């Protein structure tokens, strides 16, 4: 008797609670730490307030690698979130997981939500499209490397304007050092800036098979004369401090902001940090191109992350995903996100809106990244890269580059070694993802 009452009570309670939470829950795991956590939470809260059918739960899961690993582990345990934020080097891994990933274009189509791909910046979405043009994941936070420079130091050294080519960079760096600076130029995320984007910007391939877009039987080919000559030139520039190595990630930021280095190549998303730290007049300009390779730059490729949808949930929750993506890419949300964070707006409408709001007039140079990304229609060499095991490959490239900087290898030897080791990992990836 008592048992029956208890069951009845719990059933009623369950019914009541499901009636109270009629909204379909959609879980979103992201990797945006610090103040960006609040911004992500705001986006989720605003979306939830805008309608009552769906509820987005934004959960911070640690840095990019941790978030991706957590999502994969959760998938294996059948507890995956609907949406997970994955950084660009994880793209090939996600793409290859056909049984796990629900391409965003399909999500939108299946839910009857319109996806206007022409409204997105080509350089941003082409990174995440199949060769047939299907969009796999929704771009969220994207940036690209730009050239940051110290205007005060330039003035003191008598340099007019930002250097346009790598030859200009060398002569400018020399002048900066001659004027008493400790270092001419430093570079953050060196593989991304000096190899991946160097190749795209100068419109040369990084690997075969359209940089991996056309198949996983791809091979890396960045051990070419163009790349190695440029790296060797930088290595030689170390003698007088014209170039100084400052670490694999963004550590060299301090070298730029404390006035040690007059130029710095790294992500446009450092805008906020530089604004807060630099006590001099700074500016950003487009990355230098290599005049030995091309007459004009192509377009740069992005870094950052996109939102992937994982399979295995009920159909109605995917409608929530589609609605949320629509909201997320609306011009208002995108323009706000772009102006707050320094990431690139993903749609032309958001760019136009920021322009109209006068953001670029008030903050000159903040449109450098977007100009650079949309300078030309992306080619096979410049729409992005798609190589498996790329997290480890970047490690290999970094280790080999460090051997160039410490003089234990020539650029040619280091890049040959990096390519040989990386191709082994690509073969392994191919074997694992047949």
């Amino acid at each position, binding site marked *: 008797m008592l048992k029956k009452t208890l069951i009845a009570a719990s059933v009623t309670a369950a019914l009541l609670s499901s009636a109270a939470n009629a909204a379909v829950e959609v879980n979103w795991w992201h990797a945006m730490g610090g103040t960006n956590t609040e911004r992500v939470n705001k986006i989720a809260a605003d979306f939830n307030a805008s309608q009552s059918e769906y509820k987005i739960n934004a959960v911070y899961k640690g840095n990019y*690698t941790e978030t*991706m*690993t957590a999502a*994969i582990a959760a*998938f*294996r345990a059948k507890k995956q979130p609907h949406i997970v934020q994955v950084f660009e080097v994880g793209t090939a*891994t996600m793409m*290859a*997981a*056909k*049984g*796990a990933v629900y391409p965003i274009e399909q999500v939108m189509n299946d839910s009857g939500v319109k996806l206007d791909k022409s409204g997105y910046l080509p350089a941003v979405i082409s990174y995440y499209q199949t060769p047939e043009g299907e969009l796999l994941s929704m771009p969220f936070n994207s940036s690209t490397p730009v050239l940051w420079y110290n205007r005060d130091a330039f003035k003191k050294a008598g340099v007019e304007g930002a250097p346009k080519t790598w030859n200009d960079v060398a002569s400018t760096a020399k002048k900066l050092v001659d004027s008493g600076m400790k270092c001419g130029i430093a570079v953050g995320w060196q593989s991304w800036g000096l190899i991946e984007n160097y190749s795209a910007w100068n419109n040369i391939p990084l690997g075969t098979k359209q940089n991996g877009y056309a198949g996983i039987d791809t091979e890396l080919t960045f051990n070419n004369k163009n790349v190695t000559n440029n790296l060797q030139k930088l290595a030689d520039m170390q003698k007088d401090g014209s170039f100084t*190595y*400052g*670490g*694999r990630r963004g*550590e060299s930021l*301090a070298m730029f902001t404390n006035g040690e280095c007059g130029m710095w190549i790294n992500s446009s998303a450092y805008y906020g940090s530089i604004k807060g730290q630099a006590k001099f007049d700074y500016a950003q300009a487009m990355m230098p191109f290599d005049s030995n390779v091309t007459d004009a730059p192509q377009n740069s490729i992005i870094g950052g992350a996109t939102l992937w949808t994982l399979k295995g949930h009920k159909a109605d929750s995917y409608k929530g995903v589609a609605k949320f993506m629509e909201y997320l890419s609306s011009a208002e949300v995108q323009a706000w996100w772009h102006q707050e964070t320094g990431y690139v707006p993903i749609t032309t409408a958001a760019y136009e809106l920021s322009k109209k709001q006068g953001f670029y007039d008030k903050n000159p140079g903040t449109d450098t990244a977007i100009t650079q990304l949309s300078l030309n229609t992306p080619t096979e060499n410049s729409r992005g890269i798609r190589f498996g*095991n790329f*997290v*480890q490959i970047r*490690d*290999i490239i*970094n*280790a080999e580059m*460090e*051997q160039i900087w410490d003089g234990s290898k020539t650029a040619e030897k280091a890049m040959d070694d990096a390519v040989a*080791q990386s191709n*082994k990992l690509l073969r*392994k990836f191919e*074997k*694992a*993802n*047949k």
Partner: protein
Amino acid sequence: MHKRVHYNTSYLPYLLVAPQIIITLLFFIWPAVQALYQSFLLEDAFGLSTEFVWFDNFIDLYHSEQYLGSFARTAFFSVAVAGLSMGMALFFAALADRVIKGSHTYRTLLIIPYAVAPVLAGTLWLFLFNPTLGIVTYFLDAVGIDWNHKLNSSQAMTLVIIAAAWKQVSYNFLFFIAAMHSIPKSLIEASAIDGAGPVHRFLTIIFPLISPTTFFLLVVNIIYAFFDTFGIIHAITAGGPGNSTEILVYKVFNDGFVGLDLGGSAAQSVVLMFIVIVLTVVQFKYVERKVEY
């Protein structure tokens, strides 16, 4: 009269050891078997396609320059950590053994680092040696040493060795001092009467007599350096710069959890498992029989 506890059934002893057996099976044997099985598989990160590849993962390891490099690095690292921490501990124990006043305080202070978690120990040393803020870096700069373990691989290695050794000194100290206490006082006194000084007594009486402990500690320290230093390395260098501080256990983590190469990572942990088995066998075989001297 005597009281005799009598059990009719024979399941009680099994019941009593069951918790231990279950824990061992659940947390040691099962994962080990899983790792062994995984090491024969080639699998994508999501576990969607799985292929049994026999020893391919091991063959890949054998041909991987990075892995072999990591092996050599780990050997150097563990010998350096064991040597440094045991050397320091022996020195402290020899001194503390002779202290009469306040010996308790000395011992307590020397044991404290053992209570510090590896990650905290790492962070502590990281602060001391921080290239821009560190106090030690400041003094090093004053004597003309440009310290930057983020870029300089030998400095990075030095730093993780110091941090790992520091944390293990307490443990070694405890064992050394216990071993020294178990030496019969009469032996020491006899040699003192014969005119042997403290250093001479240490070298000819104490050191040989504690050699079983020394050997035991050597094995334990090598195992410590192989496995328990993960937190320290993760906090201080994360394996860099280059791969200069990526020891085997860190590579297992990096390839498995960062690179998502599960088969390769599992194969590496199987290799590590065999190393531990060998070390344990060596320890049981020789330590139990006592070292000859």
